[in-house]
């Protein structure tokens, strides 16, 4: 990834990505220890578990997998002394189109992940944890497995970690090419060796009935790395880097029609959409103008160039006031993007310029969702196939007049009628593309 070999952009602050892109940094434990490795585990393991969870709460860390749920709140659902076994599963199934950040952590800095997981495990009374790595990262599975062996040999994992009496085993579990396994209950079913059909919530919230029907915390790779950084910087400094309620840094993955695509680690809300695209990523290709942005992975609702959104910002007296903000001035944080009717999701920003056809782009995504629906719920299993068939035929010039209406109708009848959020993930692109670019669909529907 070429952009990472450049020095950090002034808007960037690499903390999770710091080691991974240091010249000469290698993924072995000696290199990690020379860079302050496992110092935060040493601090945490003499704390009380409740104090660790409080620190994570105070940091305002939100999950980096897509839902942006407050991490400390999630951890708080686990009752330390309920007498049940607890588990952690790390979600390294990175497969939301447009997202490419965890791969660099897994390949270049695996011990940072292990240290974050060990801190979490100690806080949550977990003695067995799995790292779910998609099998399309075969080298990452080998690198992380080796890192686990190294950490065991040095007493950072295994029995009686650092003389504390606390035990933890971590194993790598490889996926097998299914996007649905990034859904947390599907991931759990996959580790249980079953077809990964998502479980219905309630009652199957992982923190209550997770892996092997026991309380389980599922966090993304990047999220666990932030845990380590919270204890390095202190929860207050970490929280202050971000916006109220959304602390720290976040890796924004920019791809598509920009000059310097790449993953950029930026304080939460520290750039606007325009600064991210035009400043950090070097702008669009010569002679091109912006057409559309998918801001948070392929499932997030698309935004059209020139749109203006009403969001809440901090006023002169420190109070939150309503303000109209154009697309390119929108701060990149979870609350602002939610107020703009979309989401920051997994941080995968896909930029499209005026050379792109929106029907073609939507059809590409529809084929993705048709391929990846697990088939458990009828509205999704049937609906995504019909959506894909319709846009495929429209792209070929065989569209009919009622296609846009039927497309919307089918999407509206998937969203909200499925066990997991895949139904929404597949419907939102259809609904938002149709709403934002109706003229391109009308042209194809004769």
């Amino acid at each position, binding site marked *: *990834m*070429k*952009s990472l070999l450049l020095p950090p952009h002034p808007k960037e602050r690499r903390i999770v990505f710091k080691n991974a892109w240091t010249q000469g940094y290698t993924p072995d434990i000696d290199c990690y220890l020379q860079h302050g490795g496992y110092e935060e585990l040493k601090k945490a393991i003499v704390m009380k578990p409740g104090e660790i969870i409080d620190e994570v709460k105070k940091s305002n860390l939100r999950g980096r997998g897509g839902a942006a749920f407050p991490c400390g709140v999630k951890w708080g659902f686990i009752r330390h002394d309920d007498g049940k*076994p607890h588990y952690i599963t790390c979600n390294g199934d*990175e*497969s*939301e*189109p*447009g*997202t*490419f950040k*965890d*791969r660099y952590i897994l390949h270049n800095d695996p011990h940072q992940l292990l240290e974050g997981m060990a801190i979490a495990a100690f806080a949550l009374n977990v003695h*067995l944890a799995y790292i779910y790595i*998609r*099998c*399309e*990262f*075969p*080298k990452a599975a080998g690198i992380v497995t080796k890192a686990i062996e190294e950490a065991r040999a040095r007493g950072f994992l295994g029995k009686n970690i650092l003389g504390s009496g606390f035990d933890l085993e971590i*194993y790598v*579990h*490889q*996926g*097998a*090419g*299914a*996007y649905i396994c990034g859904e947390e209950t599907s991931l759990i079913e*996959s*580790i*249980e*060796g*079953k*077809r*990964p059909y998502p479980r219905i919530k309630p009652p199957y919230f992982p923190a209550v009935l997770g892996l*092997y029907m026991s309380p389980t915390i599922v966090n993304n790779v990047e999220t666990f790395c932030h845990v380590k950084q919270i204890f390095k910087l202190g929860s207050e400094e970490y929280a202050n880097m971000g916006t109220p309620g959304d602390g720290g840094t976040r890796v924004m*993955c*920019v*791809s*598509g*029609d920009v000059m310097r*695509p*790449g*993953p950029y680690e930026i304080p939460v809300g520290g750039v606007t959409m325009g600064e991210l695209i035009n400043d950090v990523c070097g702008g669009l290709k010569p002679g091109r103008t912006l057409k559309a942005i*998918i801001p948070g992975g*392929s499932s997030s609702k698309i935004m059209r160039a020139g749109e203006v959104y009403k969001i809440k910002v901090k006023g002169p007296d420190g109070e939150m006031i309503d303000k109209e903000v154009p697309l390119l001035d929108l701060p990149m944080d979870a609350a602002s993007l939610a107020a703009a009717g979309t989401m920051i999701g997994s941080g*995968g920003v*896909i930029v*499209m310029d005026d050379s*792109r056809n929106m029907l073609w*782009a939507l059809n*590409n*995504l529809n*084929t*993705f969702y048709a*391929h*990846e629906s*697990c088939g458990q719920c009828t509205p999704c299993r049937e609906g995504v196939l019909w959506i894909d068939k319709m846009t495929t035929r429209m792209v070929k010039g065989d569209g009919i007049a009622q296609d846009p209406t039927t497309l919307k109708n089918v999407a509206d009848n998937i969203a909200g009628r499925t066990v997991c959020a895949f139904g929404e993930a597949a419907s939102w692109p259809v609904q938002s593309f149709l709403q934002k670019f109706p003229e391109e669909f009308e042209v194809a529907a004769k």
Partner: protein
Amino acid sequence: MDKHVAPTSVSEQANQIPADLLLRIDEAVTHYPVSKRSASLPLLHLWQNHFGFIDDSGVNWIAKRLELEPINILELVTFYPWFRQQAAGKVCIRVCRTLSCALAGSFEVRDAFCKAAGIDPKAESHGHTPPVSADGKFSVEFVECLASCGSAPVALIDDDLVEDITPEGTATILSQYN
């Protein structure tokens, strides 16, 4: 041996398990102290990595090893796109099909890989059984997002991620796997 009974097929994978594969299978099962069934996916991976695909004897063998019914294993093989019931190429070329790679030309790259490998680019190649070149050397298929959108278009060739591919560069890339 009764001459009238067809010999049990020595070609069945379950009759050809080498000792080191057995050791790795035993090791994988120890990673799941709570439930042996959890070792289904790891065992399928080990099996496919060794044999290239998973035949019926493999499904039965793994089921027996984990004290499951064969359907518990077969339903995984048919669900997960990664698993195969027929051999693919000796070198597997998986080109990313999804949006960021498509924007950067992955369809042209897929076609160019097909031509360089001697495979008809029109062959359906988005499922469990990709088209294979006549010499059995290469298979070319589309897969969904490989999570390297910033260096699109990309392909996974065996275990190697190849980035920033151009159609013109595909023949040179393939020559490194000859």
